[in-house]
């Protein structure tokens, strides 16, 4: 699929006098303009966010990166993104820890274990998870999942409580980062799984058959032929999933209890993320408050941009392999 079909250039009619037809010139420039528009749009997103974030940076009396409080509309304004950055990072990391094994297992199951007749349908079913709107994940997480999470979080506290991450000192287990992470994990699962599956399918048939012919079990075939070939693809799929987890807003905003503190006990009600904070604070913010939220959005934009660029760069670098299977 990814072999680049470069159509031959149209025969440029070389009638004496006019070198290129009028229609061709207009159409070429129109499409090029559209291409440039995409670049301008991305630049504009960055530029406008920087511009409108300036008042917040200027008036802030706290340290933007290390202050945990968020009082941008006080006089003088005092706020920082430390708590937001922490909450965003830890919820995404926990979500990745849960989602990556499940997603890769799902991709392997559909690719190499399920019967060929139903594999495509199974892939489609998992893709449905990607189509569920985030507000529904939030509603489900808040109203359904949260009621069933007490058992596991209490178990983590009772038996793994010596690890600070799982200790719960206040005995309340709702509205926690852990629950948000479980919901995030389900949301990013299809992203990671779909791309991994695509990469696994591109492993040359000859590699797989050769290893089976040498007497490898199915798992040895996967470990020796599929995983080494697919590793760059799986890594970039994971990065794309991470990007989605970092920027997810509504589901997280509904589940977390939005506290401005750094709390390592992820099963306690606490936590806040860049995106959730913007959605929750937006409609009560004054001028500097808006500017401060835009500033935090700018940081989120930069982080997701970097994560996505790395993912795309990995894919682009290994593109020459991806056509191996025709």
């Amino acid at each position, binding site marked *: 699929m990814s072999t680049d079909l470069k159509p031959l250039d149209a025969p440029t009619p070389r009638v004496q006098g006019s070198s290129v037809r009028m229609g061709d010139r207009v159409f070429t420039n129109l499409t090029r303009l559209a291409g440039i528009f995409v670049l301008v749009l991305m630049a504009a997103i960055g530029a406008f966010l920087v511009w409108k974030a300036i008042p917040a940076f200027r008036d802030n009396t706290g340290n933007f990166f290390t202050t945990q409080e968020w009082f941008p509309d006080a006089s003088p304004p005092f706020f920082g993104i430390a708590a937001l950055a922490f909450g965003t990072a830890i919820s995404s990391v926990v979500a990745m820890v849960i989602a990556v094994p499940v997603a890769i297992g799902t991709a392997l199951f559909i690719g190499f274990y399920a019967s060929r007749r139903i594999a495509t349908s199974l892939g489609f079913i998992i893709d449905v998870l990607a189509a569920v709107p985030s507000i529904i994940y939030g509603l489900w997480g808040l109203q359904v999942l949260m009621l069933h999470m007490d058992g596991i979080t209490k178990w983590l506290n009772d038996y793994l409580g010596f690890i600070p991450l799982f200790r719960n000192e206040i005995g309340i287990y709702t509205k926690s980062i852990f629950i948000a992470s479980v919901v995030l994990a389900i949301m990013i699962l299809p992203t990671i799984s779909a791309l991994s599956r695509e990469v696994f399918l591109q492993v040359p048939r000859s590699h797989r058959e050769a290893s089976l012919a040498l007497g490898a079990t199915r*798992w040895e075939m996967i470990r020796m032929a599929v995983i080494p070939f697919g590793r760059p693809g799986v890594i970039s799929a994971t990065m794309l999933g991470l990007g989605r987890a970092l920027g997810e807003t509504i589901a997280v905003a509904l589940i977390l209890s939005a506290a401005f503190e750094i709390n390592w006990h992820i099963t306690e009600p606490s936590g806040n993320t860049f995106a959730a904070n913007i959605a929750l604070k937006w409609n009560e913010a004054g001028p500097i408050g808006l500017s401060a939220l835009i500033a935090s959005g700018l940081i989120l934009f930069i982080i997701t941009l970097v994560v996505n660029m790395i993912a795309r760069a990995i894919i682009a670098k290994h593109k020459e392999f991806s056509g191996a299977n025709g």
Partner: protein
Amino acid sequence: MSVTDRDDAEVLEGLSSQLAMKTLPRFAAGYSALIAAALTAVIVALTPAQGIAGSLVILFLLYMVVQTGWSFAVEGRRFAVDRLATTLVTTMFMIALAALVWIITSVVIRGLSSFSVDFLTSTMRNVSPLREGGGLLHALVGTLEQVGMAALIAVPISILVAIYLVEYGRGKLSTWVTFFVDVMTGVPSIVAGLFIYTFWVLTFGFERSGFAASLALTILMIPVIVRSTEEMLKIVPNDLREASYALGVPKWKTILRIVIPTAFGGIVTGIMLSIARVAGETAPLLLTTFLSQSMNGNLMAGPQASIPTFVWDQISSGTPASIDRAWAGALVLILVVVIFYGLARLVAKLTAPASE
């Protein structure tokens, strides 16, 4: 793909096992499960109550231990690892499937229990959060208008970008455009909302409106449509283009009259899928148009409701009646998404022969 890999593997495994080595009986998995279940029953009976979830976890762990241990004793390490891997991979898939089924059934069951025809034909005007009744007609209208407008803006731009990348793109510019279209798919939706707010409201001084929401959705739609259109244009056979050039048809006319019509079905399918995608977006709408309890058919002025923000509002109210409305709203939202997906498949099916 005539002979499946799975059959190959099975034949090979079967052959080698018959020739050379001892294997577990055919229903080893079933026997292991039975043994594990018996052991679980003993453990649950002898130790303090574990609950259903705890018992299932114990059952699963025991199943793995029994099967792997048995296989290790009879077949050796390599085949034991293979069986363990099969169990784990299958379990991962089951977990993913269970999550999906759990979410969908929750929405359908709880949504249906508070759904009625009135819900589709009334608005939330003068309905207090404490009272039952009310509906999301205003939100349905808002969503259709906002998404429709977003599609109207995003579709021509995206198709032009895709044409540029496939038919004209050479050199540095096209590499950059391809790269940034990919990166754009990863822009968080809330950032799209932030940008439109700074651009449309803060800089140009327009009020928050359904149209501002459409602009934010446009940013989310463009990369999706560009990608799918690109794929569709790439599979149009070059022979068609060359035949057209040979007849002296200019390139732009070839693209508009030959290439686009050939890929039309696929392009429309991609557009439908992108609509289904953005119809459920909440975050950018909260920033750019916020909420409304009443009907506002005017895209250009004043706050306008939409289904996702309707659900958000009902959850935020938090009363039993409004939570019921939130579930019913979620059901309608899923139905809207499903309808667009269905339309996409229908278009793909109807136009499939034309592209061959």
